[in-house]
């Protein structure tokens, strides 16, 4: 690099300033990430290896116990049950939300009077605070006095009513149904936007080729919607796995632990039994599960793009 002909300081300083500027742009984002994502995660991992109890808050003493917190929560028979419940809750919610969300998105793609108005009404469950809508659902599903059972009895569909919140298998179904209701707006909104991006001339071409509505959905809509579907499903899973407030409001994890998920277990351990170490271990298991799912998605996505 010949540099003798020009004043020596200027390019060096300029280079330094350019590098500094680059770093300055990075610093706010990096500091934010470290403070609000890095620190809590590191702290949570640390806590999961400590005996962190109410006493710790006052004395600050939290002895390291190695993997004991993990061994305890994984060995508990409540864990496998909560894991299964979490899997059923997530799978049920996602399938329901996605199928109904897609159906609504396709429906609203047609132009009809009041279509826009109705589409915005569909967003309501998303706009309501979960504690409010959860409480309302709890009233509606009350086995004795709820409107749902009253209607079923009135229509002679069920003489005694369905124990929506008091039956051990029905309660999980109820919570899944409510969560589907909560999730439909999100699915519809994103899928609807995805549908708008598909050029209409493709449909016209398909029609000219003699494709019916089913064939044009299979060969035009679905392939072009795939990337959006991937995003909706991954976000859906990540949102659903960690659902806490809805379960707490509607069933509180009951009856007899039938709606206890990993998230509610973690909450109970930390904030009701004040076993922060074990609660942290439980939430780390939850984080690893979400992370595993996100990685599977990313790899599938990369393969799809490369292939």
């Amino acid at each position, binding site marked *: 690099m010949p540099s003798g002909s020009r004043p020596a300081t200027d390019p060096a300083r300029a280079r330094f300033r350019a590098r500094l500027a680059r770093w300055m742009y990075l610093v706010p984002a990096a500091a934010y990430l470290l403070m609000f994502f890095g620190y809590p995660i590191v702290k949570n991992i640390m*806590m999961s290896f400590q005996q962190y109890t109410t006493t710790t808050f006052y004395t600050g003493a939290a002895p390291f116990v190695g993997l004991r917190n993990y061994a305890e929560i994984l060995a508990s028979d409540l864990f496998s049950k909560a894991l299964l419940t979490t899997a059923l809750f997530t799978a049920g919610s996602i399938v329901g939300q996605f199928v109904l969300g897609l159906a609504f998105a396709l429906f609203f793609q047609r132009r009809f009077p009041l279509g826009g108005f109705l589409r915005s009404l569909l967003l309501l469950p998303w706009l309501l605070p979960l504690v409010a809508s959860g409480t309302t659902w709890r009233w509606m599903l009350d086995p004795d006095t709820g409107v749902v059972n009253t209607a079923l009895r009135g229509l002679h569909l069920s003489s005694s009513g369905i124990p929506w919140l008091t039956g051990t298998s029905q309660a999980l179904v109820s919570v899944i149904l409510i969560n589907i209701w909560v999730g439909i707006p999100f699915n519809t909104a994103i899928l609807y936007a995805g549908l708008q991006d598909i050029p209409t001339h493709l449909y016209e071409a398909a029609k000219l080729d003699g494709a019916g509505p089913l064939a044009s959905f299979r060969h035009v809509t679905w392939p072009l919607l795939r990337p959006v579907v991937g995003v909706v499903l991954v976000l859906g899973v990540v949102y659903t796995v960690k659902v806490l407030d809805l379960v707490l409001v509607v069933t509180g994890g009951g009856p007899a632990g039938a709606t206890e998920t990993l998230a509610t277990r973690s909450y109970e351990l930390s904030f009701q*039994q*004040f076993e922060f170490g074990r609660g942290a271990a439980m939430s780390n298991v939850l984080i690893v599960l979400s992370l595993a799912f996100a990685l599977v998605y990313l790899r599938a996505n990369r393969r799809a793009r490369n292939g």
Partner: protein
Amino acid sequence: MISPARPPARRIAALLSGTIALALAVTGCGGGTGTGSDTGKVTSITALDYYSDEAEHSQWGEILSACGRSAGVKVEQTSVPPASLMPKILQQASSRTLPDLLMVDNPDLQQIAQTGALTPLDPYGIDSSGFAKGILSAGTYKGKVYGLAPDVSTVALFYNKDMLAKAGVAVPRTWDELKAAAAELTRPGRYGMAVDANATFEGSWQFLPFLWSNGGDEKRLDTPQAAQALQLWVDLVKSGSMSKSVLNWTQADVHDQFAAGKTAMMINGPWRIPALNKDKNLHWGVAPIPVPRAAQTPITPLGGEVWTVPRSASKARQEKAAQVLACLNHSSSMLTLAKQHFTVPSRSALASRYAEQVPSMAAFVKSVEAARSRTSQLGVKWPKAATGIYTAIQSALAGEQTPEEALRHAQRIATGD
């Protein structure tokens, strides 16, 4: 546990916001640098309680200020919703910003005393003689008294006088009478009996009078005595005299069912009385909880909040707080509080005089004498036993397990670590 009706939504919202505050405390973002060590004259002290209900807050505010005046300080009272109190205390403990005077629910006292955040009361020269045995044991940790409650309470059987009269049913005194009366009082759209069988410590608390009165014990849950007590609740649900929804009901929900005439009898505490009195058309009575065999005395759990003096940098502030605490536990304050909240003064001699003055409270005064504190046997291990108990109640009432199986499982939860 002893607080008046709060809608579940508000309760959970409070719980969640408390959780966020606590999460911040866990991650060390508590902030604040403590109350400081002002060596000068103390003119005001801080107090924290969970009397967030407006009427309760102002009634306690009055008595706190009156006691503050006699100690020569201004008392700055803060009230948080019951569910947020424990998170708040932990958060303040970690940032060394605990108030000078702290109220805690009696079963939580030993856990907080264990952390070392509280000071024993005897060095302040506070007189703890004559207190009912149960409440004194709840306020004691490792042989030292850390907290005293001016007034205490317990649960009893509330019944709708009109419904009992119409059905020609006498107030049940034994379990058999309870089952018969509940069945007799059940109509379409109305149940005979209601309890709180919620999957929380509240559910365990409501079950204790049945467990204890039958000779059961929280130290050993897998006994025939415990199974018989749980069987009683199962029978009430199975026969249709009690709604299966009790699985989801809080004490506030149980109250609402009773007030709405959807149940003829319920287990609840005297803190419901002000709300029950508001409805002029509701004619209710209160009786001791039915016992297994006639002429037994029910053994009920003791409810009530104890006041404590947290450790702080300023000895002078601690002294002032202790003076206010002593004043709260004077006979006159006890009587005022007991009359305001339909509770029972915690000094036994005073309680008997009170029963003569306020005959409607006689059932509670009698029950409180025999009442046991939840932590008297297990101390800081009580939360585990309580978790075992409500787990057993839930699975037995949901029909997942027989009472015996459920209680064997409960015993494993209670003794596991």
